[in-house]
């Protein structure tokens, strides 16, 4: 099987989808001729023509708004928002329009579209190239929210998202584009080429939305993570020697609650890790669910390791980032609580 970086896998997903279905169109800022600032759409314009892959004006509301119109017409737009931080001008169109058109028209109109956007920190991007806004999507009925952590999933989930009949937010953890970053910013990153999840089928395949993956089986504590934090969680488990079960959620809405519940009931402990600010982050929902559904199995309070409730700072990136040390402390703390 070919080895791909996450960028290549994402590109391959769009390529496969465009090849199979003429209704699939791709556009975004710098996404046409140049192929996107992260090069995810490179080569697609050349292969499929300017009318199926093109540069958009710098207008996120226009990108989402026209994509909605295209989807209502019958196309399947897969648009790129240059950074998740820049989806905010299009947030009205995403949450008040795309999310509700099937509902408000009782299925008369539908919006099969994907909005891809790089998310998360770790590249010294400062407060406007580092945010993790997943909770702002997960709260909105009608949207699905997907966040892969590796090339294999990225391709399989993106094809599934494009083929899905509902609007899907596809968050790409930019710190994982080139390798499974575990939070040790002072060490070289393994490239995807030497990681088994870098093995990606060349052709069509899908990973279903709504299913988590267990990245590491363990008996002592369940770590719920997604995106970049999956590898941070794995590193923390190795480094602390805590026998943690690491669950990669992959899709936040719909959520694979079954897998979560089963694991937490087994381990009796739970740590949630995310990069977004703590207050009202997706971890709040996970803790609420765990406390509602696994209360009688819990041996210690479930806890969160998250970004602080401050903007994402530039110089203090590694203080802000919930790295393996912070996750490790949480693991140890949750094991001490009896």
């Amino acid at each position, binding site marked *: 099987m070919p080895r791909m970086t996450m960028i290549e896998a994402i590109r391959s997903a769009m390529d496969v989808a465009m090849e199979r279905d003429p209704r699939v*169109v791709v556009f975004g800022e710098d996404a046409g001729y140049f192929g996107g600032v992260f090069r995810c759409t490179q080569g697609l314009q050349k292969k499929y023509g300017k009318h199926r892959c093109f540069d958009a004006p710098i207008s996120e509301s226009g990108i989402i708004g*026209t994509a909605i119109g295209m989807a209502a*017409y019958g196309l399947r737009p897969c648009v790129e928002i240059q950074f998740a931080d820049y989806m905010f001008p299009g947030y009205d169109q995403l949450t008040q329009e795309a999310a509700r058109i099937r509902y*408000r028209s*009782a299925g008369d109109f*539908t919006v099969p579209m994907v909005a891809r956007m790089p998310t998360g920190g770790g590249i010294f991007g400062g407060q406007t190239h580092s945010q993790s806004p997943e909770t702002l999507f997960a709260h909105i009925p009608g949207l699905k929210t997907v966040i892969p952590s590796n090339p294999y999933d990225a391709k399989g989930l993106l094809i599934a998202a494009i083929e*899905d*009949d509902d609007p899907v937010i596809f968050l790409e953890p930019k710190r994982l584009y080139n390798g499974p970053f575990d939070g040790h910013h002072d060490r070289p990153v393994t490239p995807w080429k030497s990681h088994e999840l870098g093995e990606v089928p060349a052709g069509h395949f899908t990973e279903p939305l709504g299913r988590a993956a267990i990245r590491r089986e363990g008996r002592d504590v369940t770590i719920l993570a997604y995106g970049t934090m999956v590898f941070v969680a794995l590193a923390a488990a190795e480094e602390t020697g805590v026998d943690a079960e690491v669950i990669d959620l992959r899709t936040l809405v719909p959520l694979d609650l079954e897998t979560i519940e089963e694991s937490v009931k087994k381990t009796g402990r739970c740590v949630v890790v995310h990069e977004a600010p703590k207050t009202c982050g997706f971890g709040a929902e996970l803790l609420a669910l765990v406390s509602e559904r696994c209360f009688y199995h819990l041996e210690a309070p479930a806890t969160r390791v998250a970004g602080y409730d401050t903007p994402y700072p530039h110089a203090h990136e590694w203080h802000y980032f919930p790295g393996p040390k912070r996750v490790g402390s949480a693991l140890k703390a949750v094991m001490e609580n009896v």
Partner: protein
Amino acid sequence: MKDAPDQPHVAPTLFVPEPQCRPGDKPDFTGLVFPRAGDARRPPIDARAEDIHDLAYSLIRVLDDHGKAVGPWAGSLSDEEALAGLRDMLKTRAYDARMLLAQRQGKTSFYMLSLGEEAIACAFSKALRPGDMNFPTYRQQGLLISSGYPILDMMNQCYSNAKDPVKGRQLPVMYSSKAHGFFTISGNLATQFVQAVGWAMASAIAGDSKIAAGWIGDGSTAENDFHSALVFASTYKAPVILNIVNNQWAISTFEGVARGRAPTFAARGIGFGIPSLRVDGNDYFAVNAAARWAADRARAGHGPTLIEFVTYRGGAHSTSDDPSAYRPKEEFAEWPLGDPIERLKAYLIARKLWSEERHVQARAEIETEMVQLQKEAEKNGTLHLGPNPSPKTMFEDVYKEMPPHLVRQRQEAGV
């Protein structure tokens, strides 16, 4: 509505535009100078935007004060079409009146009239073909009525009853009909304008000859998505008609607050290289002729057209509004562009195709039809007394397949 004469700007004050008249004032439209019917030129459909800037400041009018259709924009309608147009407008007005009453009687929560603006939607729809798509606001019920959408279904929607096509999920008047080229209405202003452009781009991408029409109110042009619509339409030459309905008011706010220092809303298109027309919106002929011109342009691959339809909002903004608090009651009656129904009627009478008697008769027939339909609709239910769609439908259509968490919530709700 014209700005009051420029306040000399002396520091310290912010310039805040004000309408000419407020309650208690005598309506005064002397500031509004409208060209005569027939005066505006009619360029070819492949005219370049830069060669027709004047049309953004002029006013395309066909029906003159003597019931004649005059000038280069005349002639787009046969006698049968004109007669059908009158009937469409009468129906729209009668429908509105019935539903307003129904709301007042507590049979539903809310209603919005298109009183005085009927010509715009009714005449525009005749320039479209099956498969074309409108992205309307809440004041284009005339599009549905004039294109034959069942009024019974409209009533069912307004009552949120068991047969409401959108299952009680939307406020009254928020219709949806793909089959009738009517995109599901949103409560969020202006969002549909750029969606229309996207739909038109899709048609071009697909190699289709269908066109889209976006609709927006004068006040809502201030919303940001007005801009994204013009940007994308201009850049990609989308086959779309971008309609601004300037009915002088946005709830209590006169149109000058959105328009600012530009003399017209049509002028907004100039800076985008989009051909822009300003049209008498109470003139069924002018509306239809401009719409056809723009539709032909779009279909021939010449790209978008922006049209400002000038009219007057005859009624309250909605049943939640009382305009006597902010504008003189008599303004509507004195509106210089008149009543669209009266003007088309005068034309038809002048051509001996119609008479006062037939008019009275037609109104009575339509009224009877509406009462009949209303009875039928009320058999299907009304908002508070029901029957309404089953509460379990509340959980449907959020997604194509109901995800587990919604299944759980539906079970918890016991429906």
